[in-house]
């Protein structure tokens, strides 16, 4: 007898380990995270150092001069810039996802559990926000408050929670009539306790899966913002910015596009594989 019991997450982890694609994706992601953290320190150049010693400012990758990924059009080392950009992109992605997760889960679970008029009002509010063109919303935010990394988390998170709220609300709505919720009510537990203890943990599977699928969306959205010049500010960079800059020079200096695109594509692919694996692992029907 397994007296310690097997938790939802321990169980899911056991099943995830059997999924080779998901584990490979997880390993690859971890490697990229480590590379983004260590990478900038390995090079002798700094993120905003312009190398005037080069024959041309945009120099292709070479081992001799230490510009392993080449330089950008301003003669700055691309190796350092790509890893530092990866850092920023991952940071934005994780924090914005966390923001949307917290707001979305709390909002959706409350609306779904309470139901009735409260549910109507809360979800109509979500509908109204949905109807706003969020690009417009983000542009206004950045114009009014100026550009900062923090604002990007906030803006993307503030937009991203809407779908999460809808998903969680749907789940909560069906959980609300489960007998164990009635049992918790007759036990005399207050509504906020029931939502936190008995509703939210039951939607954790769906939420984790949706979150892993949100991360790539956020990275793409940040890239899009950066592409429009609303993202992170120089000398900081992000993968989206690097791809945008590289795209402008893709005929004369293709490495400027290829290197950051390869990293971005790998991250997105890995996250999608991981999300897929998690969805399978957390599906209770697989038990």
């Amino acid at each position: 007898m397994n007296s310690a019991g097997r938790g939802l997450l321990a169980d899911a982890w056991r099943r995830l380990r059997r999924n080779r694609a998901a584990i490979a994706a997880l390993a690859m992601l971890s490697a990229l995270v480590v590379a983004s953290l260590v990478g900038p320190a390995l090079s002798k150049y700094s993120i905003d150092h312009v190398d005037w010693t080069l024959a041309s400012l945009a120099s292709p990758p070479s081992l001799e001069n230490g510009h392993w990924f080449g330089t950008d059009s301003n003669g700055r080392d691309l190796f350092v810039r790509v890893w530092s950009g990866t850092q920023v992109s991952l940071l934005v992605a994780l924090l914005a996802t966390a923001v949307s997760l917290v707001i979305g889960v709390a909002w959706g679970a409350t609306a779904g559990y309470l139901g009735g008029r409260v549910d109507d009002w809360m979800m109509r509010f979500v509908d109204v926000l949905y109807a706003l063109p969020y690009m417009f919303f983000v542009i206004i935010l950045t114009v009014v408050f100026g550009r900062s990394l923090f604002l990007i988390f906030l803006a993307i998170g503030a937009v991203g929670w809407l779908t999460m709220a809808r998903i969680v609300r749907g789940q909560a709505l069906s959980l609300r009539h489960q007998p164990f919720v009635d049992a918790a009510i007759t036990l005399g537990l207050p509504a906020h306790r029931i939502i936190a203890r008995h509703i939210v943990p039951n939607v954790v599977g769906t939420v984790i899966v949706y979150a892993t699928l949100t991360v790539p969306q956020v990275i793409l959205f940040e890239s899009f913002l950066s592409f429009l010049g609303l993202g992170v500010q120089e000398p900081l960079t992000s993968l989206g910015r690097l791809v945008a800059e590289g795209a402008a020079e893709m005929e004369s200096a293709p490495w400027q596009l290829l290197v950051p695109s390869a990293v971005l594509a790998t991250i997105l692919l890995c996250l999608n594989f991981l999300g897929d694996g998690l969805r399978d692992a957390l599906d209770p029907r697989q038990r």
Partner: protein
Amino acid sequence: MNAQPLLDVRNLGVEFETADGTVRAVTDVSLEVMTGECLAIVGESGSGKSQLFLACLGLLAANGRAVGSARLLGEELVDRTERDLTALRGTRVAMVFQDPMSTLTPHLRIGRQLTELLTDRGLLGASEARQRAVAALHSVGIPEPESRLDQYPHELSGGQRQRVAIAMALMAGPELLIADEPTTALDVTVQAQVLGVLHAARKRGLAIVMITHDLGVVAGIADRVAVMYAGRIVEMATAAALFEEPAHPYTAALLASVPRLTGTQPERLANIEGQPPRPHETAPGCRFAPRCPSVRDLCRSTEPALQGAADCRVACHAPLPQGWVR
């Protein structure tokens, strides 16, 4: 009645607003539960026996509405705010449901679920609550209660889960337990264990309302029995009197339809001809009249009131004579 009843239900009705109009699930029910007694509510599916007590606990579906009065220790339960009811639930009155497979939250360890109310209300600290949980599991006959606390519901059998659910309901020491068909989903041997647990809890002074359609369960545990038919109480008597001398034809027919192990076996099990009326059908007269073997003209026009001595009341124009033997 000399003492104040624990639960005093007066003229309680339950109505549901549906697309087909208002459906009355429970009509004008009055009953009382005394401290430490076990009242069984018997009736067939749809007779309103569960809705009656869900209404008392404020657990009706969104389209449901309770009218009348239900007082728990003098405190009104009908039309109270959720906050007031939450304060009463668990500590004064608790409920056990039919399906033990789904009344425990699947991802929470047993110990956590048992202690949740106590720690949440600040009644006990975490370690005392855990000790109380061990004692509670022990009292419902769960072996190795210490290690069970760290298990998840899916690691327990159905009977064990129902006993855990009972232990959970009793954690905060309520005076009244409403058991809604607690044995229906269980095997017969497991039923006996669960009934034993409820019996032991009664010995410690707990009042129990046992909602069931299993007359064997009623005979085993109940002091008094209320028989419900189509949303009304048709007979209320002590268990002994009810089984010996049912006064209402419906009760008699119900008892006659129970298979027996002794005496001559009938060719076919007795049944009650016809169907119970649908809740939104409102014909005048006694609701059992269309199926009643001893129906009179009066039964079809005037509805009989529940009357008689306090511990033997019947709603019938032509009650079966006392001394009538099946």
